[in-house]
């Protein structure tokens, strides 16, 4: 007679597997349905001869012009500039924490960065309205609500995300090489430069891609600090409007007009941008760099 236990175990193994499979299918179906919803609702705009109006540089809803290109450019400018500040800073923090800085300072620094993840975005925005914006207003001209203000605060917002991804990668690499590196007389900075950084290229690329995605998708910071002028900024001190802030602003005041309908196209663009970010991560994960 065959023992019963393996059969029971197979049954017990099947249940979590089926549950996980079900959860994955539901998640995939939800994502697909969001895409289908956005595509279906933006189809009248895209197919009804308004595509030209949508892909223009002017947002003048009263004149029937619903150009979202300034917002697309605004989103890319803001996310790119925030990452340009946050990424080197995050890399520096991780190098400092992983041996390049003194141990007594490394732990408190890392705890502070972890704490930053729990601060609500609106708090960053609110504090910056009262602290950073007046400083920019005083130092330069204009209202202070600008690309610069939003980029600096968005950099602070995405910093913990980037730090945590790079830190995870550094931990994995250092666990592998630390003792061997010390045994051949490498100082921590040499270990970082010659081993940890080159061997972490994939993790560093993933951190950049995910950080950019996080910056691109944030709504509150650009809404509160970037000034929200629907035009392409000429300088860091100019106002700009991102796609996310644009959706929030229009939804807050409108729900039936053609301007409202154009938001679905904005949503679709953001969705596709997020998809591109995730495909980028998958591509980096799947490829062996160097």
């Amino acid at each position, binding site marked *: 007679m065959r023992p019963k236990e393996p059969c029971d175990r197979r049954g017990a193994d099947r249940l979590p597997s089926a549950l996980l499979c079900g959860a994955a299918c539901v998640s995939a179906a939800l994502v697909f349905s969001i895409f289908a919803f956005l595509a279906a609702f933006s189809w009248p705009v895209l197919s009804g001869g308004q595509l030209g109006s949508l892909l223009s540089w002017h947002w003048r809803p009263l004149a029937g012009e619903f150009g979202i290109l300034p917002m697309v450019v605004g989103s890319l400018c803001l996310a790119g500039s925030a990452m340009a500040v946050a990424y080197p800073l995050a890399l520096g923090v991780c190098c400092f924490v992983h041996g390049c800085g003194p141990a007594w300072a490394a732990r408190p620094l890392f705890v502070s960065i972890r704490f930053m993840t729990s601060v609500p975005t609106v708090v960053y925005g609110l504090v910056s309205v009262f602290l950073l914006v007046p400083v920019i207003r005083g130092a330069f001209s204009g209202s202070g609500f600008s690309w610069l203000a939003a980029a600096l605060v968005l950099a602070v917002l995405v910093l913990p995300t980037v730090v945590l991804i790079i830190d995870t990668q550094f931990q994995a690499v250092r666990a*592998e*090489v*630390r*003792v*061997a*590196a*010390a*045994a*051949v*007389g*490498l*100082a921590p900075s*040499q270990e970082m*430069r*010659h*081993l940890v950084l080159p*061997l972490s290229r994939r993790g560093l690329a993933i951190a950049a891609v995910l950080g950019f995605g996080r910056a691109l998708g944030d709504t509150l910071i650009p809404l509160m600090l970037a000034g929200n002028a629907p035009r392409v900024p000429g300088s860091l001190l100019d106002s700009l409007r991102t796609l996310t802030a644009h959706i929030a602003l229009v939804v807050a005041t409108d729900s039936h007009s053609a301007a409202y309908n154009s938001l679905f196209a904005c949503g679709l663009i953001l969705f596709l941008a997020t998809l591109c970010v995730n495909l980028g991560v998958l591509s980096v994960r799947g490829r062996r760099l160097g």
Partner: protein
Amino acid sequence: MAVAIRIERLSVDFSGKAVLRDASLEIPKGGPTFLLGRSGSGKTTLLRAINRLNECFPACRTSGRVVVNTADGAMEAYAPDTAVEVLRRRVGMVFQTPNVLPLSIARNICMPLEATQGMRGAEAEARMEEALREAQLWSEVRDRLRDPAVALSGGQQQRLCLARALALRPDILLLDEPTASLDFKAAQMVEELLGELRSRYTLIVVSHGLSQARRLAEYLFVLHDGGRVEELGKDVFRDKDALLTVLGDLL
């Protein structure tokens, strides 16, 4: 007898738990000097205390004195002004399990040379070839220096680790059970290699193999009771029965 390393009242704690307590010994130049003892007697900790590698492990506290005599003079290992990286280059180490870096075979040797001595190009390659020949690995890897080091067999990886240490031209080599993870043939090859290196380096070997110690040791110390160190004379450790009797009494 010239002394390579003088250890005085060395104590090492990990997370408050004493692994070594007041260990004192003098390790002569040349060798090989073998350290024997039961598992957990602190042999590896003693070895790692010489080049301060215990500091790579969390919650380690060391007290006592370790003086290492190098070609450049005596180095007090735990003195505040001692550059630990320089000490580790003078005192190379090979571990129980081969720990090649996840780089190519060539980079495993050239990278430390480049990082620590600024040596690059032809000079570094010449040093690499010299070290690989010294570790009797050159003929096996000369055509695949750009291959990943992890693709080598266990015995080859261990000899690559040895070559990596030798390329830095140390005065002293610490070997922590260098044949423990190898098969018979690979272990035999490493043993032969130790026999050749003994004339050029001070070798300190932690081992569990009594027969290996009897065959290769020039000096032999036994660690017991958390830090007491007993030196055995050649007449004792070359004689199997005498060695077993003494070890039976000590351990």
